[in-house]
């Protein structure tokens, strides 16, 4: 049974250097249309050290478009931009898609947030860096694919061995005849 409201967001994790962009896709997987509003919020640690959404939005990160209407089965891609202006350190952001479904006096909307970790180079005071998101380690450089190299090496070794054996045999015969 399909639900009237059902929203899916993908993907959900980013490492976003300054100057980069990223994209999330919002999909209406329910049976009713809704309007999606996009926004960016910071993720902070509360007094207990737990990571939580804040109500603040960084001035240096934006997401476009600001809104889109999704029909059932429809999808829309939103692009977020990490502009210069952030202080050095790792900044945790939530790229948020809000389904503007709220009605009545006390409205309740539904939101899904993708995480973006923004690593800004520069001096950071020791002990102040407690990121909520995990920054992926830089990918290891691609190693050499040894399989074809080994195959070629074996062929070359065999040819060389044959050459040496043939040369010695011919040399021995030549000496014998001489």
């Amino acid at each position, binding site marked *: 049974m399909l*639900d*009237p*409201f*059902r*929203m*899916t*967001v*993908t*993907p*959900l*994790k980013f490492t976003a250097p300054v100057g980069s962009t990223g994209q999330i896709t919002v999909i209406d*997987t*329910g049976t009713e249309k809704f309007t999606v509003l996009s926004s960016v919020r910071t*993720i902070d640690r509360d007094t207990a050290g*737990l*990571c*939580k*959404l804040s*109500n603040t939005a960084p001035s240096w990160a934006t997401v476009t478009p600001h809104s889109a209407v999704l029909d059932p089965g429809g999808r829309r891609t939103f692009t977020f931009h990490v502009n210069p202006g952030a202080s050095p350190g790792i900044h945790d952001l*939530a790229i*948020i898609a*809000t*389904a503007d*479904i*709220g*009605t*009545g*006096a*006390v*409205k*309740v*909307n*539904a*939101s*899904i*947030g*993708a*995480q973006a970790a923004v690593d800004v180079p520069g001096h950071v005071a020791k002990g102040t860096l407690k990121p909520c998101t*995990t920054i992926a380690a830089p990918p290891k450089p691609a190693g050499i694919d040894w399989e074809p190299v080994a*195959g070629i090496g074996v*062929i070359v070794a*065999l*040819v060389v061995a*044959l*050459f040496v054996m*043939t*040369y010695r045999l*011919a040399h021995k015969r*030549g000496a014998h005849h001489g």
Partner: protein
Amino acid sequence: MRVGRITAIIGGAALALGLSAGPALADNPGGNVAASVTVGSSLTLTGLSPTVNWGTVAAGASATQTNAEVFDVSTNLVNGYNVEISPNSGGLGAIGDTAITIIQPSGSFAPGTYPFIENGVPITVGTDRGPTADDHYIENWQVDVPATAAPGTYTGNYGVYAFAN
């Protein structure tokens, strides 16, 4: 003459090697089909109610809307997700967000009582540290109207936020 013989032997060896390597280099000898699929991370929120309505409540009294919000969260994230309830604008005007308590009864994912501690500050009502097909949330929303609340209709705007861990 000798050089020619050597060349012929090497050529024959190379040819033999080439022939023996032939089947390994041939395209798709067994009719196999290479298949791959890329699965991206995703998170889905299902079935929220768009409104909470306590009706008319006397000053100094409490009211609870049972099953005010019932929803499911699913994700394939290895580290799971968090759900927060966040006031999006001045919650319930002069009454304030701190008058509201979210109660997740037994049968709900993460059962417990979650009051708004501070006006404008989100509260966490659920955390799952791994992938899940459907975490089912049942929420009763309670409001404690201050005895000094002036007559009138108070409005608010809240958001249920599910985000990656």
